[in-house]
C-alpha cells in the first residue's frame, strides 16, 4: 500500500498486466514519444504522462506509438483483440471518437452478437474526458452516454486512484470491449493504493457514503463533489448515500434501486450534457421501478445543453459544482 496518483495507479495497472500477460500491448499517439526524433525516447509517455516508463520496460514491440490515424489504429486494436492480443489503445481525448467511432461501435461492439457468439474482442480503449481544463469544445466532452448506448460495449468511469487501478486490471482481463474513461483533471489526485494487482468487478456499485435521507448517484469526478456535499450536509443532519456505479454499462441497477427504496429521495449528478445522459437513464429507471418509494421528485444536476465553453468564467458556470449538488440535495430533502 502506498500513496499513488490517479496517473500512477493506471500506469501501475498497465505495467503489472503487461508483466503478467505477454498478449497485453499498449498503443496510441506518443504513448512513448520521440519516435524517429533526435532527442529523448519515451519523451512524453502519453500527452499527460500516463504511459511513461512502459516503453523502456516492454520495448516498442509492445508499446506502439502510432501516426495520427485513429480510425486505422483503433481499428487495428479491435482486429488484434479479435485475433489473440489484448490491446489497450489510447484515444487521447474522447472527443476524437468522431474520427474512429465506426471501428468501436459497428465493429468491436457487435462482433460477439453478429457472429453468433463466436467472437471475443478483449479490447480496452483508454480515453480522457471531462471539462475543467480550459480545453474548449473539442477537448472537454464527457460522451460516455454515447458508448453506454451501444450494446456490446462496457463503459468504465473510475472516480479515484484506487478505483482506477482495480478497474483497469479488470478491464484488461475482461473479454469484452471496454471503454475506460479517465477524467483529465483527476490525474494528480492521490490516495492509498495497494501495490499488488487487484480487480474491481464491473456492474457493482460502490457506496462512498451511507446515509438515510437522500441518495446521490454520481460518476467520475462528480463522485468526489458528491462526497464533499454529503460530508458537509451530514453535519447539518441531512445524511446522504453516495452511489458510484463505477460502470455505466453494465449498470448496477439493483444497488441504485435499493438505495432509493431506503431514502426515497434521489439526486443524479452527471457531467455529461443533459439530454439522453446517465442522469436521464437512471431517473427513468427509478421512475419505472421505484416510483412508489419516491418522497420527492428526482433532481438531476448536469451541465446545460451547450458545448463546453472555453472562457474560464463560462466553463466554471457550465460544470456541475458542489454548490449545485448541495442545492439539489436540499431541495429533494425539503430542507
Amino acid at each position, binding site marked *: 500500500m502506498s500513496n499513488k496518483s490517479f496517473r500512477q495507479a493506471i500506469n501501475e495497472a498497465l505495467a503489472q498486466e503487461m508483466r503478467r500477460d505477454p498478449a497485453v500491448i499498449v498503443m496510441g*499517439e*506518443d504513448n512513448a*514519444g*520521440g*519516435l*524517429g*526524433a*533526435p*532527442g*529523448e525516447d519515451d*519523451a*512524453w509517455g502519453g*500527452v499527460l504522462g500516463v504511459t511513461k516508463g512502459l516503453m523502456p520496460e516492454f520495448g516498442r514491440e509492445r508499446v506502439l*506509438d502510432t*501516426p*495520427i*490515424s*485513429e*480510425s*486505422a489504429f483503433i481499428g487495428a486494436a479491435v482486429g488484434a483483440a479479435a485475433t489473440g492480443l489484448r490491446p489497450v489503445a489510447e484515444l487521447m481525448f474522447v*472527443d*476524437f471518437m*468522431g*474520427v474512429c467511432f465506426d471501428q468501436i461501435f459497428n465493429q468491436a461492439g457487435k462482433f460477439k452478437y453478429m457472429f453468433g457468439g463466436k467472437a471475443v474482442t478483449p479490447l480496452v480503449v483508454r480515453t480522457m474526458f471531462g471539462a475543467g*481544463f*480550459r*480545453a*474548449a*469544445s*473539442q*477537448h472537454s466532452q464527457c460522451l460516455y452516454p454515447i458508448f453506454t448506448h451501444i450494446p456490446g460495449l462496457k463503459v468504465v468511469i473510475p472516480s479515484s486512484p484506487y478505483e482506477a487501478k482495480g478497474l483497469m486490471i479488470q478491464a484488461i482481463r475482461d473479454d469484452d470491449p471496454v471503454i475506460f474513461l479517465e477524467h483529465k483533471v483527476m490525474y494528480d489526485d492521490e490516495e492509498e493504493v495497494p501495490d499488488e494487482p487487484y480487480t474491481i468487478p464491473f456492474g457493482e456499485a460502490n457506496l462512498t457514503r451511507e446515509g438515510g435521507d437522500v441518495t446521490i448517484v454520481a460518476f467520475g469526478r462528480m463522485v468526489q463533489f458528491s462526497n464533499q456535499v454529503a460530508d458537509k450536509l451530514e453535519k447539518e443532519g441531512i445524511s446522504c448515500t453516495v452511489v458510484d456505479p463505477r460502470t455505466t454499462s453494465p449498470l448496477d441497477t439493483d444497488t441504485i434501486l435499493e438505495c432509493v427504496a431506503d431514502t426515497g429521495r434521489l439526486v443524479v449528478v452527471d457531467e455529461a450534457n443533459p439530454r439522453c445522459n446517465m442522469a436521464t437513464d437512471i431517473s427513468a429507471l427509478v421512475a419505472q421501478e421505484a416510483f412508489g418509494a419516491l418522497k420527492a421528485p428526482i433532481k438531476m444536476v448536469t451541465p*446545460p*445543453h*451547450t*458545448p463546453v*465553453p*472555453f*472562457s*474560464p*468564467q*463560462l466553463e466554471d*458556470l*457550465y460544470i456541475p459544482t458542489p454548490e449545485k449538488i448541495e442545492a439539489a440535495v436540499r431541495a429533494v430533502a425539503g430542507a
Partner: protein
Amino acid sequence: MQLSREDLLKAYRDMRTIREFEDRVHDEFAKGGIPGFVHLYAGEEASGVGVCMNLDDRDKIASTHRGHGHCIAKGCDPKAMMKEIYGKRDGLCGGKGGSMHIADLSRGMMGANGIVGGGPPLVCGAALTAKTLKTGGVAVAFVGDGGSNQGTTLESYNLARVWNLPVVFVVEDNGYAETTASAWSVGGSQKKRAEAFGMPGTEVDGHDFFAVYDAARQAVEFARSGDGPSLLHVKLDRHYGHFEGDAMTYRAEGEVEKLRQDRDALKIFRTKVSEAKLLETGQLDEIDAEVKELIDQAVAESEAAPPPGEEDLLTDVYVSY
C-alpha cells in the same frame, strides 16, 4: 515574381505580426495569464503569409490547432484574436472558442481546429460552394505532417480530385507531430501521395517567403482556372514546443537555437529584400516597432477586457430552437 513594394511591406508586416503575437503569447502563457491549450506558429510564418498573399475575399481557408498565424495571414484582427485567447467577451469568438477555435468567417477563415484532420473535408465543401455558385473562389486546407496521416485528409485528396474542386492542400511539415518525427510517421512522400491521387505535388522551402509565394501562386491559379486540387509540401520549423508547457526533450540539443539562427523566415526575408534593394532596413525596423506597439496594446486591452458572463452561457448553440 509579381510583388509590388506594398506587397512586400504587407508580407513582412504580416509575418512580423505573427512572430510578435506568438512570442508574446508564449511569454504571457508562462506568466499564467492565458488559459488552455496553446499551440504557437512562430517559425512557420512564411507559409501562412506566402499562401494567403495569393488569396482574396472570395477565398476560404481552414486551419489546424496551430491556427494563429493562418488567422493573421487571412486578415483576422490581432486584437480580437488576443482577446479570444484570453477568453474575453469581445474576443473574436466571444470567448467561447479560445486559441484552438479561432475563426472569422467574414474573412474567409473557417477556423482553427481541435481535431487533427478536421479541416480538409470542410475545405472541400467550401470549394464545392465556390464551384457551384461560381464565385471564382478557391479553398485552402492547412494540414500538419501529422494531420497528413488522418483518414479525413486522404479521403479529401480523393474527393477534391474526383469532384475537380478548387482546393489547395498545404501540408506544413515542421518535422514533428507532438513528439513524433514526420520522418517516422509519414509513409511515402507527400508529393508522391498527391501524385497518386492525380494532383500535382510540389515541395517548398517553408523558410523562404518567396518560394512559398511562388508555389502557392501557381497552385491557386491552377485551382482558380478550373484545373482542380493540388498539394504543397512546405518544410519548415516550429520555434516552440508542441504546445505551451512542452519541454521538447525529444528535440536535439541546440536544435531550436540553430534553426532560429540559420533558418528564421523573418531573417531570411530581411536579408533577401535588403540585398536585392527592394526595401530599406529602416522601413522594416519601423514595421517592427509598429507591430510591437500593436501587440502591446492587444495584450493590455485583453487583460483589461471583461469576461463573458452567465447571460452568455446558453447563447449561440442554435440559430433557432
